[in-house]
């Protein structure tokens, strides 16, 4: 009995080694086809992601009579920048781009400054009611923008900040998410360095600016990117609070442009390309930070 069992087992092992050997001999060709198949899927899907973007840029470079050709032209021939010239004539594009930049930079500065200060205090200081206060602030992540929308509009007009940069920036100038992100990061930093500095007579502000903030650069970068994307994404609020084209950020300006004018695809696609191409260039340089920062933020938020 025992023997036969043993024999069986050894047979099984033999079989297995045989099989794996067979698999190994199959390997190169099998893997080659598998790779090819994987790449075909990946290239096809990236084509689906990239073609709409390419199409916009291509359309913006075509001459008017070629835009509505059927079948469509894949390469703009002849190429021309007329659509861009028209776009700059139809809308104050430069001013709107400047508005977008000011709004984004303003939001990043206020968020980085106030969230890091508050995050540090919540992480390191002890005072009565700290945890309650922190919970009260964090729980506002549950309060979405649209429920604050109408009162914010009323407050902004009470303060006389309609159609100003402050008016656009303030509703998202400090975010609960930012405070949370900074606090969670700072709490993981080693205390010893701060204690050593304190013993050496460094002031609280010195510790914050010389030790904690330089150490939390990754979190600050993540917060800045997050705020940048949120500010580009924000549409409803800047649309409501601005009343002249001179104050609108680019996405709002372009959208309201299709709203009112009889649209003309050439200049419209030129405007779209003016927004998308700089974003792509920025992304090309910072893509790993974007992917890591935004998802780290998302996982924590």
């Amino acid at each position: 009995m025992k023997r036969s069992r043993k024999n069986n087992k050894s047979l099984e092992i033999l079989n297995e080694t045989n099989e794996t050997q067979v698999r190994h001999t199959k390997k190169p060709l099998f893997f080659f086809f598998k790779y090819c198949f994987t790449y075909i899927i990946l290239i096809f899907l990236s084509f689906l992601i990239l073609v709409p973007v390419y199409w916009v840029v291509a359309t913006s470079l075509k001459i008017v009579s070629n835009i509505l050709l059927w079948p469509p032209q894949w390469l703009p021939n002849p190429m021309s920048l007329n659509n861009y010239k028209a776009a700059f004539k139809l809308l104050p594009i430069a001013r709107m781009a400047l508005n977008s930049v000011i709004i984004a930079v303003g939001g990043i500065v206020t968020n980085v400054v106030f969230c890091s200060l508050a995050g540090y205090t919540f992480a390191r200081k002890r005072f009565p009611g700290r945890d309650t206060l922190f919970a009260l602030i964090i729980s506002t992540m549950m309060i979405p923008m649209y429920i604050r929308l109408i009162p914010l509009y009323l407050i902004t007009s009470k303060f006389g900040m309609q159609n100003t940069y402050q008016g656009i920036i303030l509703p998202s100038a400090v975010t609960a998410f930012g405070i949370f992100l900074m606090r969670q990061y700072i709490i993981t930093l080693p205390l010893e360095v701060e204690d050593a500095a304190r013993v050496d007579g460094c002031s609280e502000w010195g510790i914050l600016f010389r030790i904690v903030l330089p150490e939390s650069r990754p979190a600050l970068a993540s917060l800045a990117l997050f705020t940048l994307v949120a500010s580009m994404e924000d549409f409803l609020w800047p649309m409501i609070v601005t009343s002249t084209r001179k104050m609108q950020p680019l996405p709002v300006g372009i959208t309201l442009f299709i709203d009112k004018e009889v649209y003309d695809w050439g200049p419209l696609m030129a405007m779209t390309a003016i927004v998308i191409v700089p974003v792509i260039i920025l992304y090309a340089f910072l893509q790993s930070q974007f992917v890591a920062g935004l998802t780290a933020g998302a996982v924590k938020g």
Partner: protein
Amino acid sequence: MIRKVLQIREAGFPFVRWLKRNSFTIITLAPIIVYFLIYVYLPALYSVYLSLFKTRLITPVNFIGFQNYLNVLKDSFFWQAVWHTFYFTAGSLIGSLIFGLGLALILEKKLPGKIFFRSIFFMPYIFPSAVVAILWYWILDPVYGLVNYLLSFFGINAIPWLTDSDWVIPAFILIAIWRRIGFAMVLFLAGLQTIPEELYEAAVVDGANWWDKLIHISIPLLKPITLFIVTVSTIWNLQLFVLPFVLTKGGPSNASTSVVFLLYQKAFAQYNMGQASTIAVLLFIIIFLTSLLMMKYFKIENIY
């Protein structure tokens, strides 16, 4: 000498002393406390307050209790908008989960050019949504649009994407999947990396094929990250506004209104702030209940 000066400074009223001792905490926290009171808590509560009033333009006139709620809940437009919003939310969620997981499974393996593909799939996520809408406006054009041109190779007749009431929400879903696919993919990739390799090795020893490994190991262990993706995307998608606003204005014949779109119309086209606030409060309740339901369904209390 210096110590003496400090001692003198330390004297004085207890309150002043307290202020001085805690100046750092006060300076760092006071601005954000004031900010959150004025810009977050006050507006949120004022929305609830406004929803209980009949308003003329922007000023509340008289208290009418839950009358606004009754009016909104009786309004068939509201329920239409709720239906469109949920339709859109479910469609884009399922699509981005399936495609996101598929891409993550492909890109999880060691593959030359992996980072490059990952970056491409993630890219549309950072485009401003209004600009994405305009981009697709042109691509989905029924006559000259690229999508219908490409479909014509497969013998599919031109689809009236944004002008037919049956196609408009599927068109929104398509756009949303295009935009968010990378988000789901990157999170699934992060989730897959946390699964220990030994589990797969053990499964292979037991004779599991790739499908068994997917169904019995990857998907169950991805549950926490899936819950996270589901919750976050649901909260985003239920706030659908930019696509109907830019592409269709809620049309054709109200086939693409969403709850936030209705709120915008009530507030800034009809200036009925009371009813608009009611819609905001109701949407908040809907989103809150939906996220609670999901947490319960997935039976996970701690997302982080």
